[in-house]
């Protein structure tokens, strides 16, 4: 082959660069992998399992790269997410949420033919419906009793209620009682009585576990914890499985926790307008989630950031970047950000190497 023919080979990286447009999500794979490795290191010797919550990114290609070792499977918030993960070949999925609609229960038991499926319950009727559906299809679905440990969302509030549900689950064909889950939610470093909140949450879980065991129910799995409570969960003797998800991509708000994780994802925008003392990017609330704060600049300084539907206005000192320049910012809220995009671009060493579908985007059903 002549050298001319060699040089005319398409360069996949430059082909990706020329197919790029903004606003776009870009994950730095080196940082992502370092976060996954750091999590494995934290788990080493604890005897605890990790079940990364994939509602964080709804992206099977990222989920697959979080598994292995102590990471035994994934956690999902919706049946749609679970379907996308099973479709991608992941064979152990916990839907850490209540599933009550008949159509969704059917979809869930259909998944149980292809993968180990677990689900949370906090009420009798859905247990009966799940049991009926699982029996009809001839599968076994793992069940965790959801305990309201802090959030006042779903979940039973006491050991007595948990036992009452365990009695129902235990005599329901097609269901296997595996244990409990209790999600304490995001507990920020500056939250009032942070230590007390977490301690009471874990104490309630321990109390429910003891009560269930005392009543001769098996409790193999005690699932909980997010990235914000990772250290406390690792030190807790009751918890067996950790549901953290954000650790792999991180959010600026959690950096003060001193965890060995760095921000791995950026939203990349283009400067579309320049005026004295300010620029406007094509990033807006319809491309980045700001529930935990506005996006944080990478490699440039902003005096003020104002974000509307399709625009981010950045007050900054001269010299302003040129029109058409591309700038990166770290999303304040990774999960809602991913849910606004069809795909995530993948970079290594600052070069785009791939693009992956966020195939569970919008899978809220």
């Amino acid at each position: 082959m002549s050298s001319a023919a060699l040089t005319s080979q398409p360069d996949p990286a430059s082909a990706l660069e020329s197919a790029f447009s903004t606003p776009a999500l870009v994950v730095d794979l080196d940082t992502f992998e370092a976060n996954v490795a750091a999590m494995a290191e934290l788990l080493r010797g604890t005897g605890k399992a990790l079940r990364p919550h994939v509602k964080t990114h709804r992206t099977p290609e990222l989920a697959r790269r979080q598994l292995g070792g102590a990471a035994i499977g994934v956690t999902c918030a919706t049946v749609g997410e679970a379907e996308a993960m099973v479709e991608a070949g992941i064979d152990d999925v916990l839907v850490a949420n209540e599933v009550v609609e008949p159509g969704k229960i059917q979809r869930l038991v259909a998944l149980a033919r292809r993968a180990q499926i677990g689900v949370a319950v906090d009420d009798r009727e859905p247990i009966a419906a799940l049991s009926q559906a699982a029996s009809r299809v001839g599968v076994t679905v793992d069940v965790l009793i959801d305990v309201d440990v802090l959030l006042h969302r779903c979940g039973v509030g006491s050991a007595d209620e948990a036992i009452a549900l365990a009695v129902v689950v235990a005599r329901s064909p097609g269901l296997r009682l595996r244990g409990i889950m209790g999600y304490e939610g995001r507990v920020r470093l500056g939250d009032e009585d942070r230590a007390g909140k977490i301690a009471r949450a874990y104490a309630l879980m321990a109390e429910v576990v003891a009560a269930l065991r005392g009543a001769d129910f098996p409790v193999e799995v005690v699932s909980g914890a997010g990235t914000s409570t990772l250290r406390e969960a690792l030190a807790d003797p009751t918890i067996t499985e950790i549901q953290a998800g954000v650790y792999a991509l991180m959010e600026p708000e959690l950096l003060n926790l001193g965890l060995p994780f760095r921000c791995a994802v950026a939203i990349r925008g283009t400067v579309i307008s320049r005026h004295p003392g300010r620029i406007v990017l094509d990033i807006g609330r319809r491309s980045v989630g700001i529930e935990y704060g506005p996006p944080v600049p990478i490699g440039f300084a902003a005096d003020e950031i104002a974000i509307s539907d399709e625009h981010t206005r950045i007050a900054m000192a001269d010299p302003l970047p040129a029109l058409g320049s591309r700038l990166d910012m770290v999303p304040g809220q990774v999960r809602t950000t991913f849910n606004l995009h069809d795909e995530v671009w993948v970079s290594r060493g600052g070069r785009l190497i791939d693009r992956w579908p966020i195939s569970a985007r919008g899978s809220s059903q």
Partner: protein
Amino acid sequence: MNDPAPLVTDAHERVRDLYRSALGRPRDEVTTPALLLDLATLRANLELMADGMRDAPATLRAHVKVHKSPHIARMQVEHGAIGVGCATVWEAIVMARAGISDVFVINEVVGPEKTRALALLAREADVKASVDDAAQVDELSAAAVAAGSTIGVLIDVDEGMHRCGVTTTAEALPLAQKISQSPGLTFLGLTGYEGHCSLEFDEAKRHAMAREAMAQLTGIAADLAAAGLPCQIVSAAGTGTWGTTSRYPGVTEIQPGSYATMDGHHRGLDPRFGWAVTVLASVISRRSDRIVTDAGSKTVGASHGVLKGWDLEKYRFDEEHSIFLADASVPLTTGDKVEILCNYTPFAISYFEAYHVLEDGKVVDIWPVMPRGPESRWLLDMLERGT
């Protein structure tokens, strides 16, 4: 209007197939969370706007960034809109392929892939864009020349939002001159959006602010005309200011969008329009003091919402859940369906791929949200292929 092209009809067929189990079914049988569109309320909103614009000197251009629906856009044109306004070039491509020939990207279009897409689209539709910088004019001109098309250009005027846009005649005049001398471009006039007024809920104050903004906008237009560059189009207004702005002398068109779908914020500005878009949710957990639904900030959006028909206090919105306080006297139980009225509908729409269209309480159609974006470069590839 032309008939919709395959880009739109195929997407329509795709979502109809995806959600076929809901077609013809009553609301309560729709899988949740789902984006609902009540057709009667939508029609009433469009008729109300058409009535309100009948004796106005300005024309109506419907902004579609809110709903991203080719179907709603076509209905807006059927109700008197001369064309559509878009936030992105990708929206403009979809709307042109929906059969709407007058598409205006009311935003700065920067970047070779986007100017190329705009210029290619201008071969098949009447395409307009706004600028606030000479560099954008050069990019657009080069793209139009390369594509052999003509793009209509309006100068973006900053009426007080301090986002994009020029503020004075001194800035606008050289831009207008440059546009009018640039091959492939036609200078059409000015566009401004007095969005800062829509944060003022006192009606009298809001309209006074809008008039002040229009004085600035039409003042610049008069200056340009005096300099030999008359503005064929002077475009402005949103749902909060359309009544005043559409009657302000010198304004030729208004560009509201939220009036069609509505939400809590815009009903605070103009309660005559009804809530046409809601999010259907299921009660997935019933505790003694509260209900938990399966629609949270990942479906309703970061601005959250309130329950329709139930006067229950919001406890919290999480990503996949919303929680409302409800003691035993509230007859809601696990599996019940409720509708959430969004405080700001655009955020909800961004999270869905389709509307469940309801008429007389039944699902009569499924309409695609498109382009879902925010980045839809594949539409440029489609134009490049000539398909």
